[in-house]
């Protein structure tokens, strides 16, 4: 067990590589109840979210979900999040566990004109991910979960537990994230484990959660994005919608867009199996040109892979760089991402 954002979390159950492959080939369960959830309600809810987040919330239909960012006026990232439109004037946002307090202070300070409620402590969350996730959740649900599209959700019961069934995840596989009342989450977990036995279900720890998301190049707050990184450098420009109107951070982000970002978050593949870890320098001709933000051995790609900020001229696919590992320059090159093809439902 390790401490993560104040929670005791298992790094691994059977082993990171075994768990990783289980999710890619069958189905895995992640207890991610530590994630934070806030609800925002009222006639001013949309305006509050439009001010706070970079993506265009006005495009969301009820039942739809959007990936987005909270930014500082300087353009750095407060957090990344998903926005759920629960009802015409009611939304839920899901934020990173380690940022709950900071985000709560931020949204309540800058998202006025709407009623905010922090439901993190009463909301459990289980991610069911993998090619057999749909069969498993279908078996226990009283709604047709097969009909739920990617980045859409529906309400129903799963194993007789009242659940918000969200077709999202952090693995690149098809699957669901099940939001349930805190006190019933354990029962839901047990029912999924029991019903999933023949589908070869297994619990998955934080270690494989990280290798799975890294193969997809999904950003991890605190590693790949933070207060010092601009969304455009992080290649998250696709969730920044300046045409929607004003939002916090827009002038700073648009300035970077005009000038062009000086560095970019790229995918690196190491020539050997040495692991490029967070904070290791990236070199070009012996000169420091960037830094690794996340790195691991990718169990599905069977290569040592990393994400790193590098100077923009070095961000082109195929560019050769080195990563300094224990004082030694080890060859790597920029590759296209995701490292592993996603298998999400479209």
């Amino acid at each position: 067990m390790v401490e993560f954002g104040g929670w005791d979390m298992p790094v691994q159950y059977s082993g990171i590589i075994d768990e990783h492959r289980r999710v890619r080939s069958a189905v895995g369960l992640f207890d991610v109840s530590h994630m934070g959830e806030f609800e925002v309600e009222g006639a001013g809810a949309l305006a509050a979210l439009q001010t706070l987040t970079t993506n265009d919330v006005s495009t969301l239909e009820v039942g739809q979900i959007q990936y987005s960012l909270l930014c500082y006026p300087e353009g750095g990232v407060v957090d990344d999040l998903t926005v759920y439109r629960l009802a015409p004037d009611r939304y839920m946002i899901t934020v990173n566990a380690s940022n709950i307090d900071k985000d709560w202070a931020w949204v309540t300070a800058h998202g006025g004109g709407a009623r905010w409620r922090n439901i993190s402590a009463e909301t459990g969350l289980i991610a069911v991910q993998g090619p057999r996730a749909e069969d498993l959740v279908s078996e226990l649900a009283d709604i047709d979960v097969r009909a739920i599209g990617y980045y859409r959700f529906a309400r129903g019961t799963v194993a007789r537990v009242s659940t918000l069934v969200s077709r999202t995840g952090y693995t690149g596989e098809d699957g669901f994230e099940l939001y349930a009342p805190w006190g019933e989450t354990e029962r839901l977990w047990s029912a999924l484990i029991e019903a999933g036995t023949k589908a070869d279900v297994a619990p998955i720890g934080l270690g494989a959660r990280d290798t799975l998301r890294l193969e997809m190049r999904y950003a991890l707050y605190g590693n790949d994005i933070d207060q010092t990184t601009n969304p455009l450098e992080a290649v998250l420009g696709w969730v920044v919608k300046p045409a929607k109107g004003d939002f916090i951070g827009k002038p700073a982000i648009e300035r970077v867009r005009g000038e062009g970002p000086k560095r970019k978050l790229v995918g690196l593949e190491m020539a050997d199996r040495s692991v490029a870890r967070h904070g290791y320098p990236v070199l070009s001709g012996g000169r420091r040109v960037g830094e690794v933000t996340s790195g691991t051995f990718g169990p599905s790609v069977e290569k040592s892979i990393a994400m790193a900020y590098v100077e923009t001229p070095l961000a082109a696919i195929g560019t050769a760089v080195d990563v300094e590992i224990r004082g030694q320059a080890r060859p790597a090159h920029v590759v296209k991402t995701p490292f592993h093809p996603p298998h999400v439902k479209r």
Partner: protein
Amino acid sequence: MANVPADLRYTKDHEWAKPDGKNYRVGITEYAQEQLGDVVFVELPKKGAKVTAKQSFGVVESVKAVSDLFAPLTGEIVEINTALPNEPQAVNQDPYGKGWMIVVAPSKPGEWNELLTAAQYEQFLSEGH
């Protein structure tokens, strides 16, 4: 309890040494590989390199961590396990067999007697190391 073969000697850093003619074969213990988790990379010096007891001679990386390898004995490396770069998982699957790392020709053979016996290493593990 992790497997601790009786005919080997051990370090407090969880390496093992095993007599091999006049030389000693070296690897990491079952306990060490369990603690590391899936090993994905092993960095070893070249044949002919000198190693010093209790000093780092290489590195083992798992998905979650990187750890130094410490030499049980002082001497010269006369053999390295060339299969490990392509098969690092051998360290997990067979730490006392296919997962061996180097063979050392000792320059101070007396150091062998300073290593932990299997019973001492088991005692050390039971103390929670």
